[in-house]
């Protein structure tokens, strides 16, 4: 009887261990694969020069600029809207039907397949509003994708600020807005920024939305109305159209490095914050 128990226990433990290990192995395999194939191609010239020739030899600088530009602009658009919406939801809204509807809408929006969002962006921004294939169209469509993520993480960050800290502020004769803007938002800031970084990582890796809205033209965009090609789209074309596989792997490796950087900095921020607040 006792032996059975011990064996079941050990077995269960082994199963969990293997399941956990699988995750690590898969991640390791993907990283290793991309690394081995891409590292030979990754150098300063690859990063900082333009592609040339029919096979897009050379570097991917325009794609890096396009990606950063569209992501940065999307951040600028999404941050104020998401934060204001979250403040409203967490602090001001009477917790009732309307709030439940907004939250449900955000969750559903987060679940919309990105290719559908791309199609929507094409219809609304590229054609409807006449922004054409441009960084602006791409950023607007991406911001739709980021909005629910940033809004929900911000709302949770605001709710996580302890009640007794707010009370300290109210007790000194602060109004609600003073309390929210001077105490609650700064206290929630590290977690809000973490949410933003994670959403940014998601946006950098997004393909479907930008192919429909920013286009595929190899171009170093200057104005928001200029078209561009994101790194992911470039990767797709290099690989699927068999033009230049090494360039595809080089791009993939750089993308992974960027996203890894975003995730690590988000973790670092959270950790530092936890240490500071004890």
């Amino acid at each position: 009887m006792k032996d059975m128990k011990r064996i079941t226990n050990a077995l269960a433990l082994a199963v969990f261990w293997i399941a956990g290990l699988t995750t690590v192995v898969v991640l390791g395999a993907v990283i290793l694969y991309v690394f081995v194939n891409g590292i030979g191609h990754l150098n300063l010239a690859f990063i900082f020069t333009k592609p040339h020739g029919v096979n897009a030899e050379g570097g991917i600088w325009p794609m890096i600029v396009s990606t950063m530009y569209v992501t940065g602009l999307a951040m600028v658009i999404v941050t104020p809207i998401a934060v204001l919406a979250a403040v409203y939801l967490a602090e001001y809204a009477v917790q009732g039907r309307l709030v439940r509807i907004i939250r449900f809408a955000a969750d559903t929006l987060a679940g919309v397949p990105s290719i559908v969002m791309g199609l929507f962006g094409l219809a609304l921004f590229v054609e409807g509003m006449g922004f054409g294939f441009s960084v602006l169209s791409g950023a607007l469509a991406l911001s739709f994708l980021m909005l629910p993520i940033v809004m929900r993480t911000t709302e949770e960050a605001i709710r996580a600020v302890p009640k007794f800290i707010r009370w300290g502020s109210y007790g000194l004769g602060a109004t609600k807005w003073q309390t929210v803007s001077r105490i609650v938002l700064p206290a929630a800031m590290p977690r809000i920024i973490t949410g933003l970084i994670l959403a940014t990582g998601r946006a950098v890796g997004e393909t479907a939305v930008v192919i429909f809205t920013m286009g595929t033209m190899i171009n170093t965009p200057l104005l928001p109305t200029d078209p561009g090609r994101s790194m992911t789209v470039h990767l797709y074309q290099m690989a699927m159209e068999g033009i230049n596989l090494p360039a595809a792997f080089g791009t993939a490796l750089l993308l992974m490095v960027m996203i890894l950087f975003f995730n690590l900095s988000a973790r670092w921020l959270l950790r530092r914050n936890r240490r500071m607040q004890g």
Partner: protein
Amino acid sequence: MSHTLAEHQPGFVPTADACVKIAVRGLDFFYGDFQALTDITCDIRDNSVTAFIGPSGCGKSTFLRCFNRMNDLIIGTKVEGLITLDGQDIYAPGVDPVDLRRRIGMIFQQPNPFPMSIYDNVAYGPRLHGMKKKADLDEVVETSLKRANLWKEVKDILGRGGLTLSGGQQQRLCIARVLAVQPDVLLMDEPCSAIDPTSVQKIEDLMAELKSTVTIIIVTHNMQQAARVSDETAFFLQEVMGEPAMLVEFGRTADIFTSPKDKRTEDYITGRFG
């Protein structure tokens, strides 16, 4: 102390007695359907320390939060009866609780410094109320920290985070933060139950120094502390679970601890002493 029926009528404002800072008449308090306090009547004397004692859950914190209308922040609460501050009804329609809270500071059981520097914690209130000049702020920060018995320990580390201090220091920082807005009344809800003995001593000392200018009300579970620091004591009791609590006895601390008039007060005090 006896009160006539007329004094229980809504809208009645007791004549401003120079010695009475806060007057409470026939106060009932409700959390939704649950009545937490019934028919509380008492006078809090100016420039004195009043202790609220009683078992857990008898509404001491609830009553304390009535004075600065902190209960307004809890949805579904209702106050009936009258509370006056310097003869003015604090629940009158024209009264803004935000203004009231500048005059009535509050210290909580759990020290709650803001996640910012020591200096900014203390300067928070004055800044809220429009103080901008660095020299003015510097002065308020220094005076308030001195009054809170914390200056010596932090004068060289004002830029450090308030949360890096020890629990007892944090509590004194919270006191300094409240003193910086120069309240006439200081409400302290079990301020010493979560901190080290050295800080407790320092807080008791500062209470004695402050009471010449500030009226202090302190909730405490520690009978010795109540006896040490207070001039008057109020004993609250919820006799039946689910029923509202009431004020059993209110009087000079020396009398309450040596010759309580009510048997229930005596039981509570002796029970606690040993």
